[in-house]
């Protein structure tokens, strides 16, 4: 990469104020090339406003942000050339075919005519929609539309792909498919991904996560480190002999176990890694095991002192007039 060493995204003291409301309060972070970077937080925390500023859709009221080395204020066009966007709400034309939507995009982004055809096929095959290319988008399911938007976001070979809540409103199976595509993408394209989510399980796919609350970045770290900071996994067992199991857990693993609702519970670091050892070494027949990972609420609670549900309730009050670029496009 010709610009190796330069961060894909570099944000310093970035701020957005709407009147009295501080949507984003001076955040700073940087994203390395090739990284999948996640913004995790409740609705209204400032995730979408931040993404909108990075995409040049909303002007910051303070601080700086550079994408692929270009300033989002001073070099808007340069930034726009280098980014792909997948929005929370669909931005496809329902009355055009899948292919026409992509061609429209290719023309707007000036993709050379000689390669449009092959590039189009490449991205559509990647998301498994090549066979449906001549179908009207209005006949597509929510998941297919999202996949098509991902394909479109990649069509002009952006350096950074922004995904704003890429799986929101989709059923769990479709959500996991979208993640499959994102992971394929990571392997195939030289691309940095910046995404927002309020699903903890999705944040797991990221190389690093920033937790954002009240317009501030509370912590930035890898998912593993974040979860570790929350504490241990909870492993629950059903055994033939609970008392023997509790004794064995104390004796062989040095763990203090409790019984709740007919199950033996222990708190351990790395619950999944613990399970095979448990089977090998416990010496008491095990009928069922479950491992509960820290949830978004646990992580969020750890860093903000409240649950995400509470955070979302108060944020929706606070930010009623301030949700997303909609504000930007409403006024143009």
């Amino acid at each position, binding site marked *: 990469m010709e610009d190796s060493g330069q961060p894909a995204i570099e944000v310093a003291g970035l701020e957005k104020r709407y009147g009295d409301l501080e949507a984003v309060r001076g955040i700073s972070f940087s994203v390395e090339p090739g990284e999948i970077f996640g913004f995790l937080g409740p609705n209204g925390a400032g995730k979408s406003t931040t993404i909108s500023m990075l995409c040049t859709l909303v002007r910051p009221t303070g601080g700086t942000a550079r994408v692929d080395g270009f300033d989002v204020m001073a070099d808007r066009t340069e930034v726009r050339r280098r980014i792909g966007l997948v929005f929370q709400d669909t931005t496809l034309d329902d009355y055009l075919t899948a292919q026409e939507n992509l061609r429209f995009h290719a023309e707007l*982004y000036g993709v050379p005519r000689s390669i449009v055809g092959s590039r189009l096929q490449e991205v559509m095959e990647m998301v498994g929609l090549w066979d449906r290319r001549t179908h009207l988008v209005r006949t597509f399911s929510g998941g297919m539309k999202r996949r098509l938007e991902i394909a479109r976001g990649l069509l002009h070979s952006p350096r950074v792909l922004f995904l704003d809540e890429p799986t929101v409103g989709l059923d769990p199976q479709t959500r996991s498919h979208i993640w499959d595509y994102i992971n394929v993408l990571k392997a195939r394209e030289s691309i940095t991904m910046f995404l927002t989510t309020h699903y903890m399980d999705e944040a797991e796919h990221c190389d690093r996560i920033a937790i954002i609350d009240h317009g501030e970045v509370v912590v930035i770290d890898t998912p593993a480190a974040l979860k570790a900071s929350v504490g241990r996994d909870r492993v629950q067992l059903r055994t033939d002999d609970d008392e023997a199991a509790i004794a064995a857990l104390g004796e062989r693993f040095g763990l203090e176990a409790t019984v709740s609702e007919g199950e033996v519970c222990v708190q351990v670091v790395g619950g999944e890694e613990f399970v095979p050892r448990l089977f090998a070494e416990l010496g008491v027949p095990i009928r069922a095991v479950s491992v509960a990972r820290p949830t978004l609420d646990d992580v969020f609670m750890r860093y903000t002192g409240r649950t995400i549900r509470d955070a979302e309730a108060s944020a929706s009050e606070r930010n009623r007039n301030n949700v997303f670029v909609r504000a930007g496009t409403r006024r143009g």
Partner: protein
Amino acid sequence: MPGPDGADVTDIQASATVASVRVAGGTLRDDLRAVSIVWRRELIRFGRSKLRIITGLSQPVIYLFVLGTGLSSIVPASAGGNFNYRTFMFPGVLAMTILFTSIFSAVSIVWDREFGFLREMLVAPVRRSALITGKCLGGATVATAQGALMLVFAGFVGVPYSPVLLIELVLLMALTAFVVNALGIVIASRMEQVESFQVVMQFVVLPMFFLSGALFPLNGLPRWLSVLTRLDPLTYLVQPMRRVVFSYVDVPPDARASLAPDVTWFGWPVPVSVMVLVSIALGLAFLGVAVYQFSKPE
């Protein structure tokens, strides 16, 4: 700070070189491609909505043959002799077709905003002026096509199928479509929701239509109404169309004087050429305002 491991980066680089693409960035060629694709989208969508084409025709046809025929029975006294009132209405009905189709096209920006597609356009690395121009020309082309379909009925209302006449009418309709589309986009830029369309119809489109002299001659009107007709941009498009039509049909001189009176500014009869220039200027001014509205930073 973990990044991707070294091996992956190398693999990815190789594929990136293959896939790497030069992307638009504000050159004239990029802007022209943007104008062209936005224009083409309007055409594709129009061509696909057969129902819209048919309903777009039905209203002018009803006005022309139902209202026109009805009015014919009471008008002859003033119009003199055996002149067909539907001939008088024909250019007005053409303007109506253009007006309604154009407003609908322009206001579809609000739909685009509602369904998100507008954002896809606004984040592209091209000038907003290119997008708005493409939208305006696309809507104008569509409306002109719809208006041209109405020309089929010329013969039924005593207007000859003269090629020169038809070309003149198409050109005037194209100008009308351009002006109304540009105006419509200005309106759309201020519209927050699709539901406001009814308001636009009631407070903009219908007054524009009725004040333009599409249905009645701008002659012997009370002063207040006379002033309003001269403030209506559509007046300066309907009157030239009517002049053109009248120059190809046989109209008794007194009927001509009462049905197609001069539009006057403080007593000065405005020539057709000035009306056309005024319309072009208005269209460009509306377009400028529309571009400005969509270029305002947030």
